[in-house]
């Protein structure tokens, strides 16, 4: 949480803060392959990724980093309209070329964040997996992660998600007991369940899980997305606007069905 400073004289405040950002785990040292796969990922949800900060995690290829062209990587990531923030898990012998290329070297957050198996059925498996880590968004609603079983976490939000708030449930579903406001964002790696109206943006399966679904008691969202396939509600012709609905992904199309 940031506060206005108590001392109004200093022109700046420098503070450590956790921020939402994407971590790019690379499983290859071939820059061309990495960028190709990243571009495909981005194209799944261009508005979501546009100019979003990204950190590269080299854990999986830490021993082969001599082969990686760090300059080409940073330039390539920029060209894809991401903002490269830093890199982590780089071995000492390549530090010089890493810093020369303009990367900031970050400490690894925690061992638990180390490489996840590519279990999600994403359309690409050429050596890249985007995941979100370490996110403590400034404005996010408080939430209580519950029930850690089978590696799934369910996040339960027991009050409305307000305009300007963003809530994200990594590695699992999100359940909103109330409604979501216009201008809010609800994201989950798994499914999104809302026991009220959805009026903001709702993104399920943001990590590529195509089996994720969205359930709501009143469909009034601005934008809905599953596994990067997004759609503005105003562009969809459905009789279910304002009604209880379930949204799933069939091929490249979002399917909106009534709740039975």
């Amino acid at each position, binding site marked *: *949480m940031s*506060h*206005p*400073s*108590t*001392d*109004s004289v200093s022109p700046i405040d420098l503070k450590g803060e956790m921020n939402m950002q994407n971590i790019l785990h690379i499983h290859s040292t071939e820059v061309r392959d990495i960028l190709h796969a990243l571009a495909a990922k981005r194209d799944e949800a261009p508005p979501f990724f546009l100019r979003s900060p990204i950190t590269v995690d080299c854990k999986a290829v830490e021993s082969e980093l001599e082969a990686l062209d760090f300059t080409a990587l940073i330039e390539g990531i920029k060209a894809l309209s991401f903002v490269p923030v830093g890199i982590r898990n780089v071995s000492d012998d390549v530090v010089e070329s890493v810093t020369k290329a303009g990367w900031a070297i970050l400490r690894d957050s925690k061992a638990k964040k180390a490489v996840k198996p590519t279990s999600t059925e994403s359309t690409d498996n050429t050596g890249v997996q985007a995941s979100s880590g370490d996110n403590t968004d*400034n*404005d*996010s*609603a*408080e939430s209580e992660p519950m029930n850690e079983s089978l590696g799934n976490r369910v996040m339960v939000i027991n*009050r*409305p*998600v*307000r*305009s*300007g*708030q963003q809530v994200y449930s990594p590695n699992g579903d999100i359940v909103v007991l*109330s*409604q979501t*406001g*216009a*201008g*809010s964002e609800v994201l989950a790696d798994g499914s999104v369940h809302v026991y*009220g*109206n959805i*009026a903001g943006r709702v993104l399920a399966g943001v990590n590529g899980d195509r089996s994720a679904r969205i359930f709501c008691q009143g469909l009034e969202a601005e934008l809905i997305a599953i596994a990067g396939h997004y759609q503005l509600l105003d562009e969809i012709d459905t009789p279910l606007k304002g009604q209880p609905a379930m949204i799933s992904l069939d091929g490249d199309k979002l399917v909106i069905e009534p709740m039975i």
Partner: protein
Amino acid sequence: MSKVIVITSGKGGVGKTTTSAAFATGLASKGYKTVVIDFDVGLRNLDLIMGVERRVVYDFVNVINGEAGLRQSLIKDKRVDNLYVLPASQTRDKDALSMKGVESVINELKQDGFDYIVCDSPAGIEKGAFMALYFADEAIVVTNPEVSSVRDSDRILGILQSKSRKAEEGGSIKEHLLITRYSPKRVEDGEMLSVEDILDILAIPLLGVIPESESVLQASNQGNPVILETKSTAGQAYEDIVDRFLGETVEHRFLDVEKQGFLKRLFGK
């Protein structure tokens, strides 16, 4: 036990200052020692609405900077006992407010035995608004029946829930919705959001509805809190709000006959 209440909205021009003046005046006339603080540093208005603009010597920023004592700066109202105004500074900006300074002023007011400390928030979600809400125990969110105002109120509710001191300590600010400038006729004609529409979107308890009324502008221009205009509908509606805030059950008025029937069903407990 003193209570800090912030009057906020996000959007400007919806009636925060009018409400702050009327609400504080109402609490004071019920016998509670009340102070209303103008947090709109640089665009001070509360003193005008309260009719004390020519009595301002020291202001909120002077107190924060230690240039004046709190008692010197408080302006005692001449119409209602127990009512005090702490005006904002017109020549400074919001950066003059510091967290420590605001906290010490509020603590001092609490020690002085004030029952209610009403904070009149500036518009926006920047520093001034943040300072006004940070120390609050309860919030009155003022909304007009139109979409942009309602959305801004939704935003400010999110900020109340995540950035206030109560929220940081794991608690939550008690929220009240106040709809101002309500015109039943225009709601009927479909030009304005209805109370029901707004409640659907914001999902917080309704404290009251102030009907659109000419007497609000007149009262403001004369520097008279509208709650003292006991013949006007707006004045009466503000009286109801104060009673409701203090725990009385008062039926909602001025919503036209049909709407009243509906609201009775909704809030008739």
